[in-house]
């Protein structure tokens, strides 16, 4: 998923920056050609590997399928000296007017899966990040390894491992049967439950790491101050820790939500036939139906769905920051 990459980087940068530096006014600095040269490289990278592919996909989404190579109509044609630019918008209208509502439903389903996965990651990841941040340095390294090491094995291998764990005669069912908690195996594979397990398991480190970095910068005297002023523990958590770790929560949620939205492998291997997510739709349109224009339109629509809330959020953040700076 390259769509949220630049937005992601902004959040990561903000999350890893010490608080005080954010509050400082930007330094007066005259840019020299060296500075521009340095910026130039990432710009070239972004243009070649992000902007150009995006424009190509966008172009394809405005054409119609043809049995040809490539399998879509050209955008610009020359016929008898006349240049014709044909922009087909029916791919986009098709998405929304599809009689079965397949696309809309898969968008909603994808949003739901991504949102709940993010929430579960946050609920599970926060205590883990807290344990990491409050452990002694020697112990912290060990815990860090435990969080990161699973990511070193192949992604697909880990999903297959979950398949063997969750199948009808898998380890989990066996243990539950032996313990007498259940009488017959539970159907876990091919359910939404399995999809959530897979996504949460795979993306948890991306939630834990930004949260950990935010928790390391927490001013613990604020927690004591809240206690001292009569605030009960649960309320103290929400009134002191959550605002202080907001940057980590946002960065972690973005890092989980965005890739989870377009996730293809996990729902494909663990999910059932009923849970058609947007990833599968894309695959089907591209490879089964060879309808590249429609697939492109689906992809672009998803990007818009993703980018708009991020942009709104970012703008609000900036406005808040500007308001603070103006008050100085």
């Amino acid at each position, binding site marked *: 998923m390259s769509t949220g990459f630049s937005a992601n980087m902004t959040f990561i940068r903000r999350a890893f920056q010490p*608080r005080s530096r954010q*509050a400082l006014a930007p330094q007066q600095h005259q840019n020299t050609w060296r500075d521009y040269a340095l910026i130039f490289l990432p710009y070239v990278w972004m243009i070649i590997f992000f902007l150009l592919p995006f424009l190509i996909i966008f172009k394809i989404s405005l054409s119609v399928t043809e049995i040809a190579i490539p399998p879509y109509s050209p955008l610009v044609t020359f016929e008898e000296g006349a240049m014709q630019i044909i922009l087909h918008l029916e791919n986009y209208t098709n998405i929304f007017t599809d009689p079965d509502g397949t696309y809309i439903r898969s968008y909603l389903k994808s949003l739901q899966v991504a949102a709940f996965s993010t929430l579960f990651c946050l609920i599970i990841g926060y205590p883990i990040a807290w344990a990491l941040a409050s452990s002694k340095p020697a112990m912290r390294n060990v815990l860090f390894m435990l969080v990161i090491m699973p990511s070193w094995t192949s992604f697909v291998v880990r999903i297959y491992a979950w398949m063997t764990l969750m199948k009808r005669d898998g380890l989990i069912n066996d243990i539950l049967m032996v313990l007498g908690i259940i009488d017959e195996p539970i159907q876990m594979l091919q359910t939404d439950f399995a999809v959530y397990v897979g996504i949460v398991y795979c993306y948890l480190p991306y939630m834990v790491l930004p949260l950990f970095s935010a928790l390391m910068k927490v*001013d613990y*005297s*604020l927690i*004591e*101050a*809240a*206690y*001292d*002023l*009569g*605030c*009960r*523990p649960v*309320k*103290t958590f929400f*009134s*002191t820790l959550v*605002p*202080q770790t907001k940057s980590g929560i946002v960065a972690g949620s973005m890092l989980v939500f965005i890739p989870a939205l377009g996730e293809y492998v996990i729902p494909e291997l663990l999910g059932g036939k009923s849970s058609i997510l947007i990833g599968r739709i894309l695959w089907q349109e591209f490879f089964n139906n060879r309808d590249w224009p429609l697939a492109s339109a689906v992809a672009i629509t998803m990007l818009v769905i993703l980018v708009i809330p991020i942009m709104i959020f970012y703008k609000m953040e900036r406005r808040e920051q500007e308001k*603070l700076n103006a*008050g*100085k």
Partner: protein
Amino acid sequence: METPVDINARNTASQQPAAQPQTAEAIINQPVKQLHLPGQLPGQKPTPEQQNRKPILEIKHITKRFETFTAVNDVDLTLYQGEIFALLGSSGCGKSTLLRMLAGFETPTSGSILLDGKELIGVPPYKRPVNMMFQSYALFPYMTVKQNIAFGLKQSKLPKAQIEDRVDKMLRLVHMEEYVDRKPFQLSGGQRQRVALARSLAKEPRVLLLDEPMGALDKKLREQMRLELVDIINSVGVTCLMVTHDQEEAMTMADRIAIMEKGEFLQIGGPREIYENPNCRFCAEFIGSVNIFDCHLISSNATQSLIACGDFKNPIELTHDIDLADGMPLTIALRPEKIYISHLTPQEETNWCEGVVENIAYLGDISIYYVRLTDGRIVSATLPNVDRFKEGLPTWDDHVYLSWDPESCIALTF
């Protein structure tokens, strides 16, 4: 080492004579010699016991042990209604641990803390009627000044109008009305301190805890804020326990001071008492600067004690008796500002020595003269720089005589 209980008791006893009515005239007309006698210290506020104040906080046999060391060791302390009490000590002496136990952030290993006669131990911090002003102020950075001050009041679920009232009152108290909507990072250090003070006073705590109140301020602002803070605290009338490592801060702000070392109280008393009547060598050296002489007793009776000190040609004379056998070692403490420097040989038979000026530290208001005595020891003596251009002051390598009044020496037996 005596237990803190005994120190407490002795201090109370030693102050009984001061309870006699002392008018300003009586003090001025007293012969100078009597001014420095133990237990009769003019310019010192009467102790809380003498004012018949009510005890508000009683700390009894409090001990806090961490894994490897004892931070607070069997400490007793009683705080009286309306007083400002300072715990003074170097870092790691246990003063902060004691404060944190009062706030509820640390649980004592043993002992009890009574607030208005009710046990505090076991009560979580959010239910204790004490509030703390933190060293770094711990203002909520994402809240405005107003929200910060209102935070504690909101927790106690007061009606909104009442909260507004109280916040306004607090803002007026600390003169921060203009800054209600600012966030902490938009305030200067002194303003942040005012907000922190207002926030900790907003809930009308029974005891206000101050953790290094001036720790985050620069030197100039510190001196200015000390008296202002005392004014605000006194106008509210709250009982206040502060922790500091800065002796000047403790002396200017507190009514009573406890000098703390290795988890125990060494001395409790008013600022003047602990400066003029330190009860041990550590206290003498901790507060201000002091010359320490290792001596031994020649003879002692009710009106005169003679003490031999190293190579001094003349003995040291004190005008009271010392409860020691003749020939026993003791320590004499002498403050630099109580030493006279002269080029002329003193006529007295006691209380002087001679040496050569080795170094002079010019501090502006005073100069410190470091005089090397004939036996090689260095004694410091201060002279105020009263005149801008004064002739005849001692200078480097001058042979000088140092003398002092018999009352200026403090005899320390431990």
